[in-house]
């Protein structure tokens, strides 16, 4: 226990919601699916620039990014039918943004009051002389227990997010992989690419991979390298090269 490393994050990082709200406010937009699809690109490029998120935070960013991509792809391809769950996560994101926006407004009140007209307590009176008044609980044993309890509740180095991060492949890497595979085969099932079957419930890392892949795909789609088409409502999304190198916009 004495060897435990302590590490407290001394920097306060903005979370994905804060970032999104910043982006929307910068453009003076209201919070809705239109504004969200407009800032999706900014959001993605921010993630790409910031390689070194604190552990654990990147997962949150990726999750928000995936919701944004749903919104964006819906705006690109209105024919896409969203599942109830997908629509739910979009609504949820909008609601949370509105709540955060409200909190930001309220935090301005806090700022305008804090430390301006302070109500002061009394100083400690010198008139009062201390009287030695021990508590029978002050035994050596109890003091040792108390000291241990202090040590035990010191914040510990955060360990677990490392696992999460390992599973999140960087965006670039995925784009590279995707590009290489697209070059080889003209027709490629998104489902195959993501590397999971049709049956099994997705575990978390797979899910993240799918999200990252999807993200990369849309990134490519945006650049006009590939076209996205969906043959069937519940079928795979198929990707095929239109004409590599010639930008094509939707």
């Amino acid at each position, binding site marked *: 226990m004495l060897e435990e490393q302590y590490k*407290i*994050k*001394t920097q*306060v*990082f*903005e*979370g*994905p*919601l*804060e970032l999104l709200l910043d982006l929307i406010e910068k453009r003076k937009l209201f919070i809705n699916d239109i504004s969200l699809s407009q800032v999706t690109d900014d959001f993605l490029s921010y993630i790409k620039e910031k390689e070194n998120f604190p552990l*654990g*935070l990147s*997962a*949150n960013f990726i*999750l*928000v990014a995936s919701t944004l991509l749903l919104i964006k792809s819906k705006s690109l391809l209105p024919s896409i039918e969203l599942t109830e769950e997908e629509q*739910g*996560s979009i609504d*949820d994101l909008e*609601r*949370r943004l509105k*709540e*955060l926006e*409200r*909190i*930001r407004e*309220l*935090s*301005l*009140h*806090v*700022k305008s*009051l*804090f*430390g*301006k*007209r*302070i*109500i*002061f*307590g*009394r100083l*400690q*009176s010198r008139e009062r002389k201390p009287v030695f008044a021990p508590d029978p609980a002050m035994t050596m044993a109890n003091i040792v227990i108390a000291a241990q309890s202090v040590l035990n509740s010191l*914040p*510990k180095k*955060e360990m*677990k*997010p490392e696992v999460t991060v390992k599973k999140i492949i960087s965006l670039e890497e995925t784009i590279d992989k995707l590009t290489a595979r697209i070059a080889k085969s003209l027709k490629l099932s998104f489902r195959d690419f993501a590397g999971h079957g049709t049956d099994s419930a997705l575990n978390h890392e797979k899910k993240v991979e799918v999200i990252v892949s999807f993200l990369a795909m849309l990134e490519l789609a945006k650049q006009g390298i590939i076209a996205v088409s969906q043959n069937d409502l519940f079928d795979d999304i198929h990707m095929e090269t239109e004409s590599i190198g010639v930008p094509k916009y939707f």
Partner: protein
Amino acid sequence: MSGHTSALSARIEALLFYKAEPVSYKKLADLLSVSREELLDGLNELEKALEGRGIQLVRNDEEAFLGTSAAASELIEAIQREELSRDLGKAGLETLAIVLYKGPVTRREIDYVRGVNSAFILRNLLVRGLVERVEGEGRGYSYRPTTDLLSFMGIGSRSDLPEFAAVRAEMEKFAASDSEGSEGKEEKSDDAA
């Protein structure tokens, strides 16, 4: 005029004056041998008696505190030697706004609203004595504003906050329309505080 015949508000005043720190309603009621209801009446009465005076009452949900009036803040600030840190930063301000307007509130709820882990910022606010932890209903803690925080903002209670009533009304409306709970879809906030 013996201690027993003087008005309850005067006895509360004497007690808070002497203690010079926030005293819980429970302890006040015990020391004064009155019920919680009587105590709250007495506090309201005291608040009124102090209007326009040099001292004022500060209260949160559980404690009362006597301090110099906000109107005298300049005067006292000029003679006090404490180094006052007014720096909160954006994250600190937002977290305080959540605790002030929505509290008592769990860390999960704070994380959910801010979309990011708030363990570090909360610890900082705890150390500064601006928020405090209280046992929540279920497991885990809730956070609420301290009387120190209210004092620092120059207000006698949360209801003096701008827009306070409106925000509480919004929250209730929101909670009613959202009974199936947004809780479930929460960000993971498993990092140790």
